[in-house]
């Protein structure tokens, strides 16, 4: 099953490679990984998307917790949660294509953030599925570049991952 694991980790050099190294050394699957400092600059928050049987996910969370730099961890999939990913897409847009792409962007509640003579750059946030759907909808156009942030997530209600 797919799991989204959020981690608070000491914001120290090498912390990211400890996590990444753990996944490669133990052969765990890693679908996406995002990381940035939190409001407390001594802490980074990492969001990991992984897949595995219950037993593997249990080992993954235990092994992550065992890393000395990991302060706290939450498997968001165990809670009601919100999941978001951001995407930037550069797409060819000339002549009639320009209206076509603009309409699609509106339907998906995206934004055109850069306009050039022959291209649009679109910003879109949502779940991974929504981003995939947008890419599929763009089928008729020439996609020049896609950048995705990887998933980030937060639990709903008063459940919070903090120290």
């Amino acid at each position, binding site marked *: 099953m797919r799991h989204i694991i959020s981690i608070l980790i000491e914001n120290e050099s090498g912390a990211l490679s400890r996590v990444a190294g753990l996944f490669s050394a133990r052969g765990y699957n890693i679908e996406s990984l995002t990381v940035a400092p939190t409001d407390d600059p001594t802490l980074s928050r990492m969001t990991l998307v992984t897949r595995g049987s219950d037993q593997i996910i249990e080992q993954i969370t235990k092994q992550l917790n065992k890393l000395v*730099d990991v302060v706290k961890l939450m498997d968001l999939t165990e809670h009601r949660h919100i999941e978001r990913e951001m995407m930037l897409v550069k797409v060819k847009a000339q002549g009639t294509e320009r209206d076509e792409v603009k309409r699609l962007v509106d339907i998906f509640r995206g934004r055109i953030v850069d306009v050039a003579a022959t291209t649009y750059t679109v910003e879109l946030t949502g779940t991974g599925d929504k981003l995939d759907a947008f890419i599929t909808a763009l089928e008729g156009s020439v996609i020049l570049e896609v950048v995705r942030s990887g998933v980030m997530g937060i639990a709903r209600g008063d459940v919070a991952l903090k120290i």
Partner: protein
Amino acid sequence: MELTGAEIFVRCLKEEGVDVIFGYPGGAVLHIYDALYRQKDVTHVLVRHEQGAVHAAEGYAKSSDRPGVALVTSGPGATNAITGIADAYMDSVPLVVFSGQVNTALIGNDAFQEVDTVGITRPIVKHNFLVKDVKDLAETIKKAFYVATTGRPGPVVVDIPKDVTADKFEFKYPRTVKMRSYNPTVKGHLGQIKKAADLILAAEKPMVYSGGGVILSHASKALTEFTRLLGYPITNTLMGLGAYPATDRQFVGMLGMHGTYEANMGMHHADLIIAVGARFDDRVTGNIEKFCPHAKIVHIDIDPASISKNVKVDVPIVGDVDRVLKELVKEIRERKGKPDASALEAWWQQIEEWRAMDCLKYDRDSDLIKPQYVIEKLWEVTKGDAFVTSDVGQHQMFTAQFYKFDKPNRWINSGGLGTMGFGLPAAMGVQMANPKDLVCTVTGEASIQMCIQELSTCLQYQLPIKVVNLNNRYMGMVRQWQEFFYQGRYAMSYMDALPDFVKLAEAYGHVGMRIEKPADVEGALKEAMKLKDRLVFMDFITDQGENVYPMIPAGAGQNEMILV
């Protein structure tokens, strides 16, 4: 007063109560060596190869209640230490390894003797640090010792750039250390302990399966009390030998690939496994699908990640073995319940039948020296009371099977990594930690050559280790697998062009002996033990064809042993 980083380093060791470190100098650690030169509290043992320094530190730690400390230079010093660090990681040995590093300004420039030590060691340490500022040095060292010795112990590497050891700062050693991200659980959950007690008292065919965690937790007394209170059979892993007295009737021997028939059959037929500080290694479980098909499992371990990793357990208890066992004993005593006596008697009867198979029997009438015989005699001559280290191979298994350890921390070997070359340097560490005690190392002619250079260290520090070389002219363990599974095609396992070990020992300034007849074994051992202040290298010319039995072949279940 301001001290240099190097002086701070030495003061920190003193504050931690470190009396011995094992190391090897080089450019990046010269300031540190200079500071060591100017003090008297810490003895530095100069090894002949950095792998030896780390194994010696392991031997020191495993045979005492203190962490081992090693010091190596940057680049090749650090890479030479890698095998030892990985070994300590696999066997959870509390170790602090200090490595020199190039100046902070040069890091990342492919500077002379630069390697990314923190990067290289990351997957084989409990934790590691790069100290970038002398201001952080003392606190980092405090943390390093704390992390290495608490929770599930393990090696911690502290990488110190040369300029940090020259820079000055006020020395103040932190009294305590707090890390918000690191809080090992030591006290077992009471609810879980009660659940465990229910299962333990209800069992009809119980088996205590204890491992290295009991040794690491210094919980041998608690384990013995627990096991005697219940009257249950107990087996130890290779790493757990000595935690329960091997000469006691309740002890059924080691389990696993080369464990006894009674231990493995006992596990296979048990209805309850009480796993204590053991990690269900594949050398123990054999084929997981066939492992303990009838048993419920209680598992006590300080590392949650050890629990339900390989085998799903029914009642996990996270905590320190010593504390949890004491709580369990208390709980069981308070209940005044007793295990079902008749069921237990029937179970013991079954176990005694298995035991009567005498699975460790060997040919005692042979004209050749049998390796088992040497170990039996070693046990007798040393009255079962020596510290014994070993290398890796058949000789290691024979020692585990035939040297009956009655005390913990006396059997020091490399289990998880299985590192040939471990035995001799580890024995040096053991001897440094226990200067008055008898220290033996059992080895093979292949293994001993991997760290043979340490014979020189032994002379310099007058370490009177007794080397028992079981010389079968083969990498015996490899030869055995080739005999069983490769139709006797002995690819590269014959040890050709062996040195004359007697002359070699003498060249290093020690006493050498060659023993070729079974009748001479006991006499030689006695004579060697009499030479109390000399290292004696005993080269026993043993039967080339002997194999380690019983054996569970790869992929088989615990009840599918090859007996003699």
